[in-house]
Structures are given as C-alpha cells and as structure tokens.
C-alpha cells in the first residue's frame, strides 16, 4: 500500500482536482467503493499531501482545502459524538463515498465508451461516397391578373396623361379680397367672418368662399386695412375696420 502511495506522489500534477485524487487513492484499497473505509481514505489523502509538501511540491489550494476538510471529518468520526452536530460525521462520510461512486461510474463509462467500436477507428464508412444532392429549382409563380395589372401600371407610368379638372363653383381670392374690403368698410363693430360670405352660398361654393375670404382677411390685416380677433383656436374669427 505504501509503495502505491509512493508512485502516486510523483504525479501530483496529473490529478484533475482533489476528488480525482481521492478516487485514485480509494481504488488502491482494492474494494468496491461502497465498502470503502473512509477513515483509511482520509489517512491516505493526508499522507499524500504531507508527502508532497515534504518534497516541496507545489500543492494547489483546493487540495489543501480538501485536506483540511478531511482532517475535520476524521476528528469528527473519531471523537465522541456531538448529537447537535449537523450534518453528522457519518452523513458527511456517506456523501463523500457517494460522490466518489458517481465519479468512478462516469470514469468507467467513459472508458467503455472509448473502448467500443468507434467510427473511423474500428468500423469504417465509405471514405468518398458519391453523395446525395438535392437541386432546388424555383417554380416561378405569376398569374394573368399580375401580368395585365403590371402592364396597366407600366402604361399608366409612361403614357402621356391628360388631366381634366372638373368645373367647380369657387370664389377666387381676387373676388374675396374685393368683397371683404368693401364689406368691412361698411361694418361698424366686430363681425364674424361668416357674415362676409354671400347669404345664398351653400355646399362646395360656401366652403370655397370661406377659404378665400379667410385668405383675403389675412392679406388685408397684413396691409393694415382690417383687424382680426379670435379668442381661442377654432373659436369664431372676428373682423372689423381699424379704429
């Protein structure tokens, strides 16, 4: 047993962490991990670390943390039981044993996996198969409506187009200017802009007259020939001759 520990000492850098080292030490006990002596394992580990440090080998911190924890576990296992202690030393020992079992199981599984019939090592596929190809071909879609609508669009875009403006009843700006200037001269007090529209105006002509009269009012106000007043946005607009 000592001789085996000795050979392990040489390889301090070869371990993948304290659990890995513990598993290797546990395996030197040559028993099923379920029957492992945790106390003996703790001794092995502490001896190993002491030995490594005696040889002035660098020992990483996590190995030392494990050593401290194992030393604590050892004393807890050996000293008279403190019933208040949670978790109990036996539970800690069992947890350690379960973790070793799991790591051991995965290590064995990995070895068996690698030892199987691996493609490219034990079994081979054809090195240069013909290969399968799927050639994607576009099936272009368009229907007759798309076609004639497109032609209509092109024609509309490029053919000369005659614009016909429908004859609509309008009051021109010139007429409105003349009318508002004349009427405001007759008025004495503030009057709403509607009062300046022809009494018989209706529909589209009334809207046109209102728009033109509004523009005319602005122009006359700019010339100082009329005063405007409005209390709030969209409130009635009043006009009068300047005082």
């Amino acid at each position, binding site marked *: 047993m000592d001789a085996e520990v000795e050979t392990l000492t040489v390889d301090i850098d070869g371990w993948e962490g304290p659990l890995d080292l513990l598993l290797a030490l546990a395996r030197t006990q040559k028993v099923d991990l379920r029957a492992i002596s945790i106390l003996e394992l703790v001794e092995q580990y502490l001896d190993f670390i002491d030995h490594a440090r005696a040889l002035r080998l660098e020992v990483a911190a996590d190995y030392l943390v494990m050593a401290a924890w194992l030393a604590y576990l050892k004393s807890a296992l050996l000293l008279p039981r403190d019933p208040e202690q949670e978790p109990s030393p036996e539970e800690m020992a069992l947890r350690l044993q379960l973790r070793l079992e799991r790591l051991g199981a995965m290590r064995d599984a990995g070895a068996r996996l690698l030892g199987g019939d691996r493609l490219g090592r034990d079994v*081979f*596929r*054809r*090195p*240069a198969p*013909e*290969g*399968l*190809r*799927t*050639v*994607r*071909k*576009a*099936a*272009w*879609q*368009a*229907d*007759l409506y*798309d*076609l*004639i*609508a*497109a*032609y*209509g*669009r*092109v*024609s*509309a*875009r*490029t*053919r000369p*187009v005659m*614009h016909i403006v*429908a004859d609509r009843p309008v009051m021109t700006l010139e007429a409105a200017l003349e009318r508002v200037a004349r009427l405001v001269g007759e008025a004495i007090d503030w009057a709403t802009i509607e009062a300046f529209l022809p009494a018989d105006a209706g529909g589209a002509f009334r809207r046109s007259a209102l728009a033109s009269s509004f523009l005319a009012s602005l122009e006359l106000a700019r010339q100082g020939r009329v005063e405007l007043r409005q209390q709030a946005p969209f409130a009635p607009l009043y006009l009068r001759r300047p005082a």
Partner: protein
Amino acid sequence: MIDGYVRAVEAVLFAADEPLGIEAIRGHAGDGDVRAALATLADHYAGRGIELVRRGDRWHFQTAADLAHLLRRDREEPRKLSRAGVETLAIIAYHEPVTRAEIEAIRGVQISKGTVDVLMEAGWVRPAGRREVPGRPLTYATTPQFLAHFGLASRRDLPGIDDLRAAGLLDPVDLAFENAEVANPDEDA
C-alpha cells in the same frame, strides 16, 4: 454463410478510398484467393443497388449505374416573380419581339440581366432573333409555355389598352383619387 475471406475482401473494398488492385487487397485482407473472392462478390452484388466493378486491374464498389438518378433529386420550390419580372414579362408579351432597350424605354426603368434570365429559366421567354438595326440587338418573345401557364389561347387574348382602361388598370393615381371623391360626395357633410 459467407466465406470469411470473401467478407474481408468486401470490407477492404468498401473502406478503400480508391479502386484497389489484387495486391493491395491482399495487403489488407491477408493471404487468400483474391480473384475467387472478387468473382464471388461480383456475382453476389449483380443486380443489387451496389455493384462491384472492375476498372482496368483495379476493383471498387459503386452505386448501380441505372440508379444514378436517385442521387440527384430536383425539388421545385414555388417562388413569386418580382415586380420587375412581371412588368418585363408583360411588356414582352404585349410588344414582342422586343429588345432590352425597348423594354427599358417602355418601363421607364432599367432592367437587370437577372430579370430576363429568370423569365427564360421559367420557360416563358425566349430569344427571338436580332433586330436589323445598328448593334443588332437581341429581341425577346414569349413561348408556348407562357400561353399555357397564363391560360391564354393566343397573345390576342391579352386585354387591349381599351380593356385595361375600362377595368381601371390604366388610371393614374391622382385621377383614381378624384374619382373616389366624386363617388363619396357627402363624405365630409
């Protein structure tokens, strides 16, 4: 039961990355009657999906020649023709035979080479000789597949300009807007 040496030769040929000669096969499969094994295999595979074939004095497995078409599959994927594609096709259909420059003049926009290529790939457009003018530009026309695809007996079935106008397909945008207003005179009443 297959002979042990035959199956060794079978595996060696399958795993080889090039046709193998008799000696190369023996080098892997070990001593044995390679020729007899090859004859047995050739016989066994005759008529299967895989064949053992001889190329000069080398042997290899290959897919049965008559099944080569299985290895390359064409798959059609529906794709919508682009706006430029439809317009170009429409111009060709209405004006054929027509040159690229004429198509561009009618469309008022340049067309990329890919646009006509797509129409030819679809089988709707074909080159239709050269126009006898300087530069002898290629002209394009539609194909019988074009008529079949669009359900036309002949190009004369395409609606004329008057039909298009009657269908409202020629209306410029601003005129269409004006009509919409007239149609709803009380909209803001």
